[in-house]
């Protein structure tokens, strides 16, 4: 059975504006892909540990040596909108 998903909720979580047509197509396609992907549930017994990486490494450290960082100009060079050497964004909260 294709999986039923709440497209509006997932799109909101993903901060992704979708057209009505895109939502319809994704609802159908994701339902089928998830039905296929759910096969993973058949394979793995409860006692199998998960692997986040094939070659796990822990506590990887490098020498703590100061090196030059990017300049302010370089960091800001790709910004869509700037104001006084800062990234400018639309309001993040309602005022008043």
């Amino acid at each position, binding site marked *: 059975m294709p999986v039923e998903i709440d497209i509006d909720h997932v799109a909101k979580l*993903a*901060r992704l504006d979708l057209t009505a047509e895109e939502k319809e197509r994704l609802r159908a396609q994701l339902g089928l*892909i998830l039905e296929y992907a*759910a096969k*993973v549930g058949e*394979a793995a017994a409860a006692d*199998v540990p998960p692997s986040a990486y094939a*070659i796990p490494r822990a506590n990887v450290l490098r020498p703590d040596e100061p090196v030059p960082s990017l300049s302010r100009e370089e960091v800001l060079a790709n910004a869509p909108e700037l104001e006084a050497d800062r990234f400018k964004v639309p*309001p*993040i909260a309602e005022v008043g």
Partner: protein
Amino acid sequence: MAELCDLTAADLASKLRAGETSSTEVTESCLARVEAVDERVRAFLARTPELARERAAAADARIAAGDAPSTAGIPIALKDVLSTKDITTTCGSKILESYVPPFDCTPWARLAAAGSVLLGKTNCDEFAMGSSNENSAFGPVHNPWGLDTVPGGSSGGSAAAVAAGEAVWALGTDTGGSVRQPASLCGVVGLKPTYGLISRYGLIAFASSLDTVGTFTRSVRDAAILLSAIAGSDPMDATSLDRTVDDYAEGMDEGVSGLRVGVVKEAFGEGVQPGVRSSIQSALDRLSDMGASIEEASLPHADYALSAYYLIAPSEASSNLARYDGVRYGLRVPGRDSIEMMARTRGAGFGPEVKRRIMLGTYALSAGYYEAYYGQAQKVRTLIIRDYEKAFESFDVLVSPTSPTTAFRIGERADDPLAMYLSDVFTIPANLAGVPAVSIPSGLDEAGLPVGLQVTAPVLGEALVLRVAHALERELAFDAVPPLVAGLAA
């Protein structure tokens, strides 16, 4: 007669050293080939001819002074997910259409320091998500072996460029097969090394636990030379590994006599084209003639690898691609508030496949579903790792087709994501287990399209996959030329 741009890097390096040619001549030969064919192939998103000429002149000076590594002066193309300082890097996406990185990725930084010549940035599926290059926001790449067919993906531009003589060699990235599958479809050598052997610093992330940089070359020896130039730990990538081999070409000529070769039985089921099957079978016969023992091997959980991959990769992608929010770089579509601006930016900037995977990953990681999907997929990854460990107790290397089919027609699978995903069914397990694998051309099918054969070895077994691939390459003597290139000489 082959032109300079059609030679291997190893041959060019000895000619350069002998003074028989110059990097400038080789570079001009590549640039002329790009001019001649790229309107039809569309391998490049950005060309850097002026920079290439400058770097070629500098390489010639170094070679003349006797101070040049073996990669010096050899022209290369880089997949457009690899960051290049001051050169636009788009990831094949509208959202990064005008993004100019302020730093170089480590693989290019190492090659640049060694005198490499950059020809340009190659087309790819958007954010490396795809198996046909049709997901690029800037149009598809056409396979030099049949211009109405796909080059494979996601590193389709790099594979096509090397096949068409537009670059001597190229770098791509391989998360689920994105180097090996296009190498297979374009008739070139594609190496995906052990996870972590090449630094990912500056590789724009798709699925961080699977992403690897890989090489496209016209010979196995060239793959060894290029790998030797870029492999090894990097303080900027905490997952990078120390290299265990100085020169990956050393020992490559030792042959396969006495080696135990396992043939992955799961990779010969339905869906494998007869032309692919027979080409691989005849290559296996040759391996046997050369003294290798050939027996059936099994990766019992291979059937689940594709399912696990299509949960793990989109989950990691949905998280990695959260950074494209219209604030610090890339596209911005205005909105009344920041949330609306972000959602509009992402809705306008990402293409259909990227949206599909972001949605898939967001769903798989969301409250209530995490354990059933992502959690289970991580357990399947453990089972795949164990499958390989078990198989490598009995075998030195494993062999399979690289992909079930040869190049398919542009548009043929565009509306069926699951059919498209099956293209990578034999390459994905190696990414989940982190093991090295190479694809080499094993012949042509009845339609004259290249077939790829995949050799896989245990973690850090690069020297072994290259040795087996090199022995087979010599024996098979694949020397067919894409019709597009053959047509130029006529």
